[in-house]
């Protein structure tokens, strides 16, 4: 009984924490982008603009929740729910600290994460499809093609880590990194994984499904109010998710000297989130065919080579 209650409390805390963090990220991103563009960003509402989130939330809740008459109503409503749910579900397997997390001990934790990120693509594709408008459909199609091609080497990239630890259990993977973070032996697995993660989260420079300048807003062109808000929160939550899974797989999870584990984990995640925002501030969006050829002609061979070399070294008995 007590164990159930404890994990329930933990689940609610994680859910609330993720949603609030994702909402806070909208503000953090705008401030950081501002500084990187020699501006100040929003700094009016509350101290240094911190209440901007509340203002935005009130605004988005009171907007008209409009479903276009030409859209497929059920799927149109389900799509943002799928996106947010799958992203939040994937947090269940992330070890937040030595004994924290909802279910960090799941023996297929990594597979669960990969499955959930793959499912979240359905939300995007269904959104583009059910909107029944050209821009939304184009965005959804791009999302499908992009995610399939980037997921291929995302899965292959993490296999290197799995080979080194011999486990899909994320807690075991973190425990295996007490001596050496996997980013050093698995650097050429880390690089494709991070790039595929950016593509999974639809972040610039891989935000072609949205592509504001050519597709309006891409797959969520027809969405308004809180349905759009769910896409928005889902996108920011997936940034947090990709950052935390990168930290867990390649940067030693909560391990670190002096500071308590939770602080180390938060610091590492924060650094990755800032990096994601920096990418948006600095890099232009590639052309669609460039995106595809980076994925299939550069990243996929790189991951396969990394996999082969890792396997060869393990066979030869070198760590």
């Amino acid at each position, binding site marked *: 009984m007590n164990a159930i209650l404890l994990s329930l409390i933990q689940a609610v805390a994680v859910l609330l924490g993720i949603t609030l963090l994702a909402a806070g990220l909208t503000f953090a991103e705008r401030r950081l982008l501002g*500084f*990187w*563009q*020699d*501006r*100040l960003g929003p700094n009016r509402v509350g101290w240094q603009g911190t209440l901007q989130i509340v203002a935005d939330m009130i605004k988005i809740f009171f907007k008209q929740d409009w479903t276009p008459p030409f859209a497929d109503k059920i799927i149109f409503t389900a799509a943002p729910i799928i996106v947010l749910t799958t992203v939040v579900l994937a947090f269940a397997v992330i070890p937040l600290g030595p004994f924290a997390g909802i279910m960090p001990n799941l023996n297929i934790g990594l597979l669960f994460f990969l499955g959930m990120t793959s499912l979240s693509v359905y939300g995007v594709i269904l959104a583009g499809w059910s909107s029944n408008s050209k821009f939304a459909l184009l965005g959804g199609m791009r999302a499908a093609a992009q995610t399939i091609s980037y997921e291929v080497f995302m899965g292959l990239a993490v296999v290197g880590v799995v080979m080194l630890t011999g486990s899909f259990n994320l807690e075991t993977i973190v425990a295996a990194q007490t001596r050496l973070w996997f980013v050093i032996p698995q650097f050429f697995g880390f690089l494709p994984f991070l790039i595929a993660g950016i593509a999974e989260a639809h972040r610039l420079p891989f935000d072609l499904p949205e592509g504001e300048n050519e597709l309006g807003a891409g797959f969520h062109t027809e969405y308004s109010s809180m349905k759009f808000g769910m896409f928005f929160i889902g996108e920011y939550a997936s940034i947090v998710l990709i950052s935390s899974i990168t930290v867990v797989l390649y940067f030693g999870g909560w391990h670190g000297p002096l500071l308590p584990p939770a602080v180390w984990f938060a610091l590492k995640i924060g650094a990755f989130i800032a990096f994601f925002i*920096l*990418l948006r501030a*600095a*890099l232009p969006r590639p052309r669609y065919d460039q995106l595809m050829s980076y994925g299939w002609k550069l990243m996929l061979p790189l991951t396969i080579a990394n996999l082969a070399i890792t396997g060869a070294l393990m066979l030869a008995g070198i760590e």
Partner: protein
Amino acid sequence: MFIISAIRTLWLTFLHLFHKTETVQYPEQKPYLAPRYRGRIVLTRDPDGEERCVSCYLCAAVCPCDCISLQKSAAPDQWTPEHFRINFSRCIFCGFCEEACPTSAIQLIPDFEMSEISRQSLVYEKEHLLIAGTGKVPDYNFYRIAGVATPGKPKGAALNESPPVDPRGLLP
């Protein structure tokens, strides 16, 4: 090659975190406006305190967005406008009216803080537009230079104006 350039771009953008921001925090911190900045439109008076506008309609004619409306007074020998109205919700502050004005009556000043709640309050009447001073042209009085006869100044009495010539007096 693009990877190197992307990393360089990331680094250079990151360094902007330590640069000075360009933002002017407007209501507390006013931006510098050039003396010739074109903002709100005013109607000036001549050094004697009379209205300079002579209702020539040139400003209304040149206005590209038709935001100026005026009507010459019906009384004889009375050149000032009966009404003079500028709709600032349409004005684009191009300054063409100032350039067209032959008497320097209409002038643009560096004030732009004229936000209103309702659009109707952006329609300025003559009493809102008229200012007490002479604006950018301090010593200019149209009627002292122009050849037109006004009460107290017959023909030929204007500055630099020679007395009127009777063409018939030149006949043999």
